[in-house]
C-alpha cells in the first residue's frame, strides 16, 4: 500500500521522549570507545575500520580521528553498503537507495572494526558480515556501535558499546551527527500516528498530485 505509506510519511511527527546523548556526552563516549578499542587490541596494528553507510561511516571517521593522536597514525577506513545483502529484499515494499561500497585495503589477515550507529535486530550486522566475507578472510571482525537498543533477532552482540538503552518496539533511536545533520545528539523518539483530518486531506492531495513522499 504505497499510497497509505506515503500518507504516513508526510504526516508522521516524532515526539522526543528522551535525549540519550547531547554533543558533549557523545564526544566523551566516542573518546572512551576509541581508548577501549586500542586497549583491547593492544594498539592499532593490523586494525582497519569499516563503517556501515550512512552514519556508521561518520562514526568510524570520528573514532579514527580520536585514535590518531593515541597511536600516531591514521587508520584506514572503508565504507560498506549492505543493501544487496539484506534479508527483507523480497518482503518489503521499500528498497533503500544503494550507496557506494569502497574498501581500499585487502581484508586478509586484518582485524576489522565494523561500525554502526544503532544495534537493534542484528540483521544489518548479519548482512554486513556476509558482505565482508565476500571481500576476503579477515583475522577477526569486531563490532562497535554507539547505541545498543536491544530486541535482537539473531545471536549477535557488539564488542564496543557507547550506551545501552532499554526501548520498546514502537520507539526509535535517532542518531544526529554534526557532519550530516548539523548537530551531535542521540534521541529516543516515538512516531505519532494520530492525525487530524485536515492533515490527512492535505497529505492526500500532495500524493495525488504526484509528489514523491520519500523525497
Amino acid at each position, binding site marked *: 500500500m*504505497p499510497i497509505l505509506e506515503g500518507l504516513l510519511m508526510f504526516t508522521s511527527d516524532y515526539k522526543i521522549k528522551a535525549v540519550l546523548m547531547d554533543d558533549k556526552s557523545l564526544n566523551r563516549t566516542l573518546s572512551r570507545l576509541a581508548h577501549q578499542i586500542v586497549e583491547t587490541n593492544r594498539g592499532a596494528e593490523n586494525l582497519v575500520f569499516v563503517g556501515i553507510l550512512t*552514519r556508521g561511516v561518520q562514526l568510524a571517521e570520528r573514532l579514527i580521528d580520536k585514535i590518531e593522536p593515541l597511536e600516531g597514525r591514521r587508520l584506514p577506513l572503508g565504507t560498506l553498503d549492505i543493501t*544487496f*545483502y539484506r534479508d527483507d529484499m523480497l518482503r518489503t515494499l*521499500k528498497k533503500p537507495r544503494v550507496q557506494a561500497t569502497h574498501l581500499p585495503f585487502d581484508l586478509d589477515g586484518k582485524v576489522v572494526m565494523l561500525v554502526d*550507529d544503532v544495534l*537493534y535486530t542484528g540483521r544489518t550486522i548479519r548482512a554486513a558480515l556476509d558482505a565482508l566475507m*565476500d571481500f576476503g578472510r579477515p583475522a577477526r571482525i569486531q563490532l562497535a556501535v554507539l547505541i545498543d537498543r536491544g530486541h535482537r533477532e539473531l545471536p549477535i552482540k557488539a564488542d564496543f558499546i557507547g550506551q545501552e538503552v532499554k526501548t520498546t518496539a514502537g520507539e526509535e533511536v535517532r542518531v544526529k551527527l554534526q557532519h550530516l545533520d548539523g548537530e551531535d545528539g542521540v534521541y529516543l523518539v516515538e512516531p505519532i500516528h494520530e492525525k487530524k483530518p485536515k492533515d490527512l486531506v492535505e497529505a492526500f492531495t500532495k500524493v495525488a498530485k504526484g509528489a514523491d513522499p520519500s523525497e
Partner: protein
Amino acid sequence: MIISKHLLGLEGVRREEISLILKTAQSFKEVLSRPIPKVPTLRGKTIVNLFFEASTRTRISFELAEKRLSADSINFASSGSSVAKGETLKDTVRNIEAMKIDMVVIRHQASGAAHFLTQCLEAGVINAGDGQHEHPTQGLLDMMTLQEKFGRLQGLKVAIVGDITHSRVARSNIHGLMTMGVEVAVCGPATLLPRDIAAAFGQDLLVFKKVDEAIQWADAVNVLRLQLERQKNGLLPSLREYALHFGVTRRRLEDAKREVVIMHPGPINRGVELESDLADSEFSVILDQVTNGVAVRMAVLYLKSGGEQEVMNGNGA
C-alpha cells in the same frame, strides 16, 4: 519513487528513473570488481530469458547479470522449442509463467513483442530488443559509458551514425539521451533515415547529411551496426559505397582534428560502418560498453524486481 516493474523502452521514462538506474549500476560495477563478484540480492527469484532472435552479447550479459545477483535463470531459444511446432508467443509465455517465474527478459524480431507480454503476464518484462522499436538496456549502458568517460551527460553532443530507420539502438539512445539533456544528432543515408524524423523525436534532434560534419560536431559518435539482414530491399547501392560515404575511419577523425569517442553496440562489421583499426584504437570505448552492460542489467533487474524505491534514512536495524 514508484517505478514500473517493466522496462519496455526509454521513451517516456523519467529523468530521475534513468539517473537512479545509472547510479545503481555504478554500485553493481563495484560488486563486479570484488574477489567474489556476486551478491545474494535476488536469491529466490526466477528469471526466464526468452530469445527469439540471435544474440551473443545481450544474452550472455543478461545471463551473467542474473547469476551475479543470485537469481535462478532459465534460457529459452526459439529453435528446438515448441515455437518450431507452431505455438503462439502468448501460449509459450503463459506456459512458462505457469511454472512460477518472476521476470521475463525478451528479445524478439517483432516490434511491440515486449509490450504484448505485459498484457498477458503478471511477471515483470524487460525488453532486450524488439524488432525496430527499442533496446533500452543498450541505451542505458551507452549512457553509463558516456557518463563515465565525460563525468556528465548534460550538455554532451552525441552523434548516432548509420541505419537510423531500422535501429532499435538508435531509438533507445535518442529517447534516453534527450531526456538526460544530451544534444543528439543523427547521420546516415537519406534512405535509412525516418521520413519525418522531427515529428518522431522533436525539433531538437539534429540531422547531418555528411558523416564528416557529424564527427566535427560531436563529443562522441555512436556507430550503428549496418544490419546486413535488413538491407535487401535496395536501400543501399552497395556496402562499399556505404563504407566510402558513411564509414567512420581514422582518417575522418584526423581530418576533424578532434578527440572523439567511438562507440558501437556490436557486432561490428569491420571495414563497413567502422574501420577495423579504429575499433581497437584509443578512441574506442566499445569494450567498456560491454563491461558496463552487465552492471546496467544488474541494476535494471534489481530495481524492477518489485518494491518501491526509498531514500535511506540511515537509522535502520
